[in-house]
């Protein structure tokens, strides 16, 4: 039992080491990149070309293969940032600060994509680009929360203060994720309920939801890949005075390092 605790402590301690994270994340990001490279083309082509058209919406429903993955990811990314913020506040872990900072622009871009594809989908389906209903408005607030975190990180020079401010905003903003999730149940809305639920079978046929699931998996993997690319850069920048970073920088040619 005490062995287990020691093992856990060591594992947890490793996460606090930027160097350990930098060395390990290279392998993780390779696997994630591979999954994304497989899933995204397969799922998108399947969804665009092979999935049957919707009996009500025709072919405009194919926007779902971008809209749902982007929306799901924008929310998950925020939860990851809030968790990183909590870890950063409680244990002062450097890697958590880096994750929180580097996830923000990715989450913002996918939140924008969810809103944009939603508007483009809404026009032929609801007859309008935008309505101020609960789901759409709370997603817009999520985008502004992302902008807020990016702005805090950019405006505050001191890394520790910036991380603390961003962590607080990320944690407080979790309430908005709850509102997004519940918005289609609590208020009358044009927006349809969730496609995937843990407790029920999807309402759409398998030919439609299988490609969607594949794109969702691919998008998560792509997010992880992109997050590791960004965090690895950020770690090198923050640790640039240390010997191990200097050795990496010196032993790599700027070109071949890609």
């Amino acid at each position: 039992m005490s062995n287990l605790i020691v093992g856990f402590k060591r594992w947890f301690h490793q996460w606090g080491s930027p160097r350990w994270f930098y060395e390990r994340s290279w392998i993780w990001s390779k696997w994630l990149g591979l999954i994304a490279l497989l899933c995204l083309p397969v799922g998108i082509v399947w969804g665009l070309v092979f999935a049957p058209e919707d009996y009500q919406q025709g072919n405009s429903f194919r926007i779902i293969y971008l809209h749902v993955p982007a929306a799901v990811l924008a929310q998950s990314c925020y939860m990851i940032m809030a968790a990183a913020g909590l870890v950063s506040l409680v244990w002062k872990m450097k890697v958590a600060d880096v994750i929180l900072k580097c996830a923000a622009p990715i989450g913002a871009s996918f939140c924008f994509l969810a809103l944009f594809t939603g508007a483009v989908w809404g026009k032929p389906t609801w007859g309008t680009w935008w309505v101020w209903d609960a789901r759409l408005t709370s997603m817009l607030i999520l985008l502004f929360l992302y902008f807020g975190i990016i702005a805090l990180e950019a405006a505050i020079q001191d890394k520790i203060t910036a991380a603390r401010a961003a962590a607080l905003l990320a944690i407080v903003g979790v309430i908005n994720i709850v509102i997004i999730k519940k918005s289609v149940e609590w208020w009358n809305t044009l927006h349809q309920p969730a496609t995937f639920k843990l407790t029920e079978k999807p309402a759409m046929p398998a030919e439609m939801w299988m490609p969607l699931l594949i794109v969702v998996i691919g998008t998560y993997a792509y997010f992880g890949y992109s997050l590791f690319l960004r965090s690895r850069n950020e770690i090198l920048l923050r640790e640039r005075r240390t010997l191990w970073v200097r050795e990496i920088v010196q032993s790599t040619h700027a070109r071949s390092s890609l």
Partner: protein
Amino acid sequence: MGSGNSPVDTRKEFIIKMAFSSLQDFLAMGGHGIYVWLAYAAGLIVFSYNLVSPTLAKRYLFRRLQQQIRREQSTSQTPKT
């Protein structure tokens, strides 16, 4: 439209066949082409941004740090010679 699926799926078999008979058909998306392709263009931009931006940042960072190290080495060596 019309030949699509009812909301409650009762079929047992799993069918994979092309939903379009020609390329023009595919591009037109049953009259919704502009919406579908606008959405997918945005998707392409967002996915590319998340790959290109960190890759360029990495190249820039390595160049900057290498220059910095070279500068430090040259200044620390000059007093000795």
